[in-house]
Each structure stands twice: as structure tokens, then as C-alpha cells.
């Protein structure tokens, strides 16, 4: 059975490929590290009744069904992608951690401003 994979591209990232390592434990569970309930609701006393079901097993009682293997591999892949994107967000937010060139920093700033308010004010200021 072919494992799923994912590909991420962006102007500053040539190509980031996410693949499954079947020997790693994180691809052998349906409970991901990053896909659980948020700390906020758990802190408020939430009982997690919405967790994903455990993998279904074949009649031998040990081997997961092919669909369950796919679910587990996707769970691990989702964790990898979430962690990668979180790092990128942190990098964009926290200037102290930035290692990119000045030009890169300006580009990220511009992108954030554009995302937050559409960049209209910037344009106006430039004109003035």
C-alpha cells in the first residue's frame, strides 16, 4: 500500500516534502500530538468525548485494517505539517528569531500588514 505524502511550496521555500516513516510511532496512532482538544477547553473542565476512534484491527487482532493504517499515517503527516506551519508563523511573528536578510524581513512585514488590514493604510501613507 502506498503511503500518503504532502508537498509545501512558497516564495521563500523551494519545496518541502512531508513523507511517512512507517517505523516511527507517530505514524502508528490515530491520536495526533497537534490534533487534540485545545489546552483552554481542557483547563475549563472539558471531557474529551470527540477523540478519534482507535484503529480497527483485522481478524488476527493485531494488524490494523488498510483504512486504519491510512488514518494513522495521515494523523502523523498532519502533525508534521502543523508543526512546520507553526514554526513558520512563529518565525514571521517574532523578529528576534528571524535569520533572513533585511529584504526578507521587510517582505514578511509587508505580508503580515496586508493580511491584517489589507495594506490600504500603507498605500495611503506612501502617497502622502
Amino acid at each position, binding site marked *: 500500500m502506498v503511503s500518503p505524502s504532502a508537498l509545501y511550496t512558497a516564495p521563500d521555500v523551494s519545496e518541502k516534502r512531508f513523507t511517512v516513516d512507517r517505523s516511527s510511532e507517530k505514524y502508528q496512532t490515530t491520536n495526533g500530538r497537534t*490534533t*487534540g482538544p*485545545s489546552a*483552554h*477547553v481542557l483547563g*475549563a*473542565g*472539558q471531557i474529551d468525548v*470527540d*477523540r478519534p476512534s482507535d484503529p480497527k484491527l483485522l481478524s488476527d487482532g493485531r494488524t490494523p485494517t488498510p483504512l486504519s493504517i491510512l488514518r494513522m499515517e495521515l494523523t502523523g503527516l498532519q502533525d508534521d505539517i502543523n508543526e512546520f506551519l507553526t514554526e513558520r508563523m512563529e518565525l514571521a511573528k517574532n523578529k528576534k528569531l528571524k535569520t533572513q536578510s533585511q529584504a526578507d524581513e521587510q517582505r514578511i512585514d509587508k505580508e503580515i500588514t496586508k493580511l491584517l488590514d489589507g495594506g490600504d493604510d500603507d498605500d495611503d501613507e506612501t502617497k502622502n
Partner: protein
Amino acid sequence: MVNLNTVPPRNNRDYYIAIGLEGSANKLGVGVIKCSRSAHMASGDNSHNCDVEILSNIRNTYVTPPGEGFLPRDTARHHRNWCVRIIKQALEEAEIKNPHLDIDVICFTRGPGMGAPLHSVAIAARTCSLLWDVPLVGVNHCVGHIEMGREITKAENPVVLYVSGGNTQVIAYSENRYRIFGETLDVAIGNCLDRFARTLKIPNAPSPGYNIEQLAKNCKNKDSLIELSYTVKGMDLSMSGILAYIDTLAKDLFRGNKKNRLLFDKETGEPKVTVEDLCYSLQENLFAMLVEITERAMAHVNATQVLIVGGVGSNTRLQEMMGQMCKDRANGKVHATDERFCIDNGVMIAQAGLLQYRMGDYVKDLSETVVTQKFRTDEVYVSWRE
């Protein structure tokens, strides 16, 4: 001339089967409907009288602890983890053996709503579409409420009061659009009631609004309302100031702030009002505002019928107040549905989506299935009405 038989049912059947997937807020709903392709649907405005048979209507609600609202991330997680189970349950109850052959169209909520939960359900809809080779229709959530309400109550051309956790609108149909006559300028009425329920720390199950309604019913001082602002502004209304004020009163009551003379007796220091009084006064005030703008919309369009849809529409006191107003008007009549159809559900999405599909309006490319948090009721071209 409206021809609702534009697209024939699949496999030479004489009826359509549609499945609807709803998940714009904290309710995940999947419903299956069956609708005959009768000859009278080929001409005229019959979209309110489609002889819909409800084969299944399954709903699962994401409920948070008392005092908490539902966050997009956790709500989306709920929908992701329950979606397959709920779809299977809905198909089983509807006795759909082979979706590839039996289902004509998959309808899903495209907006408005919370982005992350909408996205979770849209992915499920796309997957089913590819898996079963069945066309998709993206549905406006508000139009779903309206069309379900019209079908259940058979109200032909009512003024619609749409009251829920995310929307408060007075709507009337004109020239292929559901036109918004008036709406909230800030928070929706359901959101106002839900947030007050959080202040009171009352349970969120079955719903915070329902629990407020029950507390209000138990009010023993119904003849002495607590004075609240009455903020009708033309055809619009505002509720955030009222919420902020009544929140303050509730907090003062809980803290035992004796300086608040409205709440505590000057001489004895005993509380003069109860939580039940607050709930009752809040409901009466807000509902009176809604009734006023609805009546004005009825006068504008010379309508005699009102249809109440949305989760708050299941509140019996609102129905009663609206009924009184309609009774006072000549030949007025109020239409409302029970919680099965008022509260967000999959069947309403199936109903509005099927009407769209029967007019030949369905997704041609998956890029058209991108969800949107902002999707106003009047953006939809209502091709299925005259």
C-alpha cells in the same frame, strides 16, 4: 416560468434523493431527503410545496463546559471526528444502500459561519462526491433555514425572521433575492443569550438559549420588568449594550453588591430580583424589539405571514409574542417549526441544495466549493422562485 424538473433524477427514477451536510457552528448535522418529481413542479412557484419526505435527520452538537463558548479549532475537531460516523448513521437510517446509485446530489454549507468548522464539513462533502461520483451543491446557510421553514409550514411568501446564534435578520423575498430589511448592528440574538448564559454559568446542554427560556418561565415577577434599553434603530437593532448592562447586573447579584439599589433592598439588603427575573426581562425586551421590526417589514411589503427560523425561533415565548402581533393584524399568521428544523440541521441544507440542483445550479469544478465565512443572504440568486 420556474421549472423545478430541469435536471432529471439519476437512474431514471421519478424522485430525487439529496443528502445535506451542515457544520457552520457547533452543530454537525447530516440529513437525507426524498422528493418526488411530480409534473406540477415543472411550472409555477411551487418551491414551498415539494412533498419532501425526510428519510433521516441526524445531529451531533459540540457542547462546552458551563461558562465557555465554542472555539473554532475545537469545534472543527468535533466535526472532523464525528462526520464519518454521522454520515454513516444518516445513510443507514435512510436505508441508502448504494450512495453512488441512490443519491442525486450532495449539499453542504458553503457559508456563512465559522471558517474552521465549515472547512471540515466541506472536505467531507468533497470526499463523498469523489468517492460516490455524485454532484455537489454549495448552500447558503441562511437560505437553507428559509427553504426548510417554507417547506415544513407551507408558508408561500412570508416575511422571514431569522434568529440564531450568528444571525438576526428580517427578510422578505423580491425579484429572485431574499432581501434583508433589517438586521442586528452588532451581536446576534442567539449570541447575546448564549453569552448571558455564560455569565450565569448555566449548562450549555441542550442549548444555553433553551436553559435561559426555562429560567424565564420560572420568573415570579412577570409584571415588573427590569428596565433595559430598547435599541431599535429604524429597521435594525442593537443588542451589545443591553448584554453589557445585564451582565453587570448579574455579576453584581452574584457578588452581593448591596450598593446596587436596583438589585438589593435599601433597608434590608435582601435581593429584590432573581436570575429568573433577569432572564425574563432580557427575553421580553429583545423579543419585543424583534416583533417591532418584523411588523414594520410586514407593513412595508403588505405581508400577512411571518415565518420564524433559526435556533432562537424554537423559543415558545418568541413564537407567542409574534403570534399576538400577527393576531392583532388583519389575517396575520405566524409560522414556526420545532427544534428538529429550527436548530441547524442537515435536512435544511439538503432541501435548499436540492432546489438549486433541480434548477441546474451545481458545482462544475471543485474550486467552487471553497467555503466563505461571509456570505450574505441576499447574495444568492433564488432561481427556484418566480
